[in-house]
């Protein structure tokens, strides 16, 4: 795709994230095969596809948790300089992930510290960026718990005592407390009851719009993509087979596989 993006639209020039040719092989299988896209500030990109399509591998590659066999991930840092992530030192990279990026995981036990209180889970990210004043950390944690609709009287409970929906809310608070500009989400609503899912989606939708976050959300649920995203990337067998404006891809799918996906959705 080509086309100049004017500064007027994004408030800045150039993309926040620029992914090119990302490739990962597991033996003969290509889990991710030459995937590329750009993401601008405030844009929400949904990556859709069935399990095994490579969409979660893609997130892992972008976050640097999986080593790529080929390709680059470049990010415009807070100082305005675009850097290739593979060229960052380990400490610099950790600092980036702890502050300017968030990662909301499908399995909350991987995104939270299960033995630490809810307030501690949120406070830990703040301490990671240098906050030391206990009263202020606690106040900020309480504020974020309220924003994700967790009652203040649960602040000292560990997430082991939380329901699935509450754990996801806590993950969101933990990630957003440092005011990141980019948040990766891996199936954040799957495995939840439908009513819980609707509430969580509404929270995510509201916060993303309010904070102007750039988001990459991996989901197998086209309704989630429709509700939250501006653009969609359809993956199959590690490759991007279709991409575009979300309602265009879902209302007028071009690829055979996308047509099958869209036609397979149950409507209530």
């Amino acid at each position, binding site marked *: *795709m080509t*086309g100049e*993006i004017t500064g007027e*639209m*994004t408030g800045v020039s150039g993309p926040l994230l620029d992914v090119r040719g990302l490739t990962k092989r597991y033996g003969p299988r290509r889990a991710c095969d030459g995937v590329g896209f750009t993401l*601008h500030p405030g*844009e929400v990109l949904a990556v859709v596809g069935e399990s095994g399509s490579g969409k979660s591998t893609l997130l892992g590659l972008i976050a640097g948790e999986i080593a790529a066999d080929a390709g680059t991930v470049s990010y415009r840092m807070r100082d305005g300089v675009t850097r290739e992530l593979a060229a960052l030192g380990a400490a610099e990279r950790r600092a980036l992930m702890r502050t300017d990026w968030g990662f909301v995981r499908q399995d909350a036990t991987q995104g939270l510290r299960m033995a630490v209180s809810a307030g501690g889970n949120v406070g830990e990210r703040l301490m990671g960026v240098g906050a030391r004043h206990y009263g202020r950390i606690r106040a900020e944690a309480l504020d974020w718990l309220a924003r994700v609709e967790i009652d203040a009287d649960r602040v000292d409970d560990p997430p082991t005592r939380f329901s699935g929906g509450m754990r996801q809310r806590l993950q969101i608070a933990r990630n957003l407390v440092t005011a990141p500009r980019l948040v990766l989400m891996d199936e954040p609503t799957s495995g939840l009851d439908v009513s819980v899912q*609707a*509430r969580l*989606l*509404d929270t995510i*939708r509201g916060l993303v719009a309010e904070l102007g976050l750039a988001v990459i959300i991996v989901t197998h649920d086209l309704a989630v993509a*429709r*509700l939250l995203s*501006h*653009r969609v990337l359809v993956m199959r067998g590690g490759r991007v087979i279709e991409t*575009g*404006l979300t*309602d*265009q891809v879902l*209302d*007028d799918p*071009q*690829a*055979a596989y996308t*047509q*099958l996906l869209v*036609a397979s959705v149950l409507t209530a």
Partner: protein
Amino acid sequence: MNPVLAFDDVGKSFTLHLRGGVTLPVIAAASFTVDPGECVVLGGASGAGKSSLLKMAYGNYRCARGAIRVRDGDRVVDVATAEPREILALRRRVVAYVSQFLRVIPRVGARAVVEAAGIEGGLTAEAARTRAADLLARLALPERLWELPPATFSGGEQQRVNIARGLIAERPLLLLDEPTASLDAGNRAAVVELIRERRAAGAAILGIFHDADVREAVATRIVDVAGFRPAAAA
């Protein structure tokens, strides 16, 4: 006059991969314009591609051939080739689209749904709040429903919320896909009045209306899509 919307030799077909790759040609060559203050109504039998033309102008159908030029201030954007970001910017500033069906957002009340569309279209929160109430009242949506999510509303009630969403921010181009389809006579009259007001205020309007009385009341010109049909299907 400078048109707000110009279709230039637009063609569209659907390839149905799930049905053996059969290709359905819908529109062979559509060319027409809509000026400010005009309400162009698409005429022709159902299945003739009227809705497809509206969806292509809004950008949720792709345009395989030709150009669809939308004026945005002193710029012109070709929706057929524009980047997703440019189309989204057009939707914030220029184009409003009212379909027959409201896409429901969980847990958000009717009035808030309308207000959000106003804020997205550039109104202040206060202006959006006042105008949402004004529109819902004019469309006779009972006030007890305003704070409730529209998921449980009747078709006609949802449609009125949808119309209010589409009209709250005064965008220069309105695309109306049968906005009165499931409304009674009283509500139809209210919608007609709103459309005429927007037309008088200089909006360019492209619409589909099955009711002859509504069409008569709002149209400044009819464009018959039969002329755009592929030869084999005409």
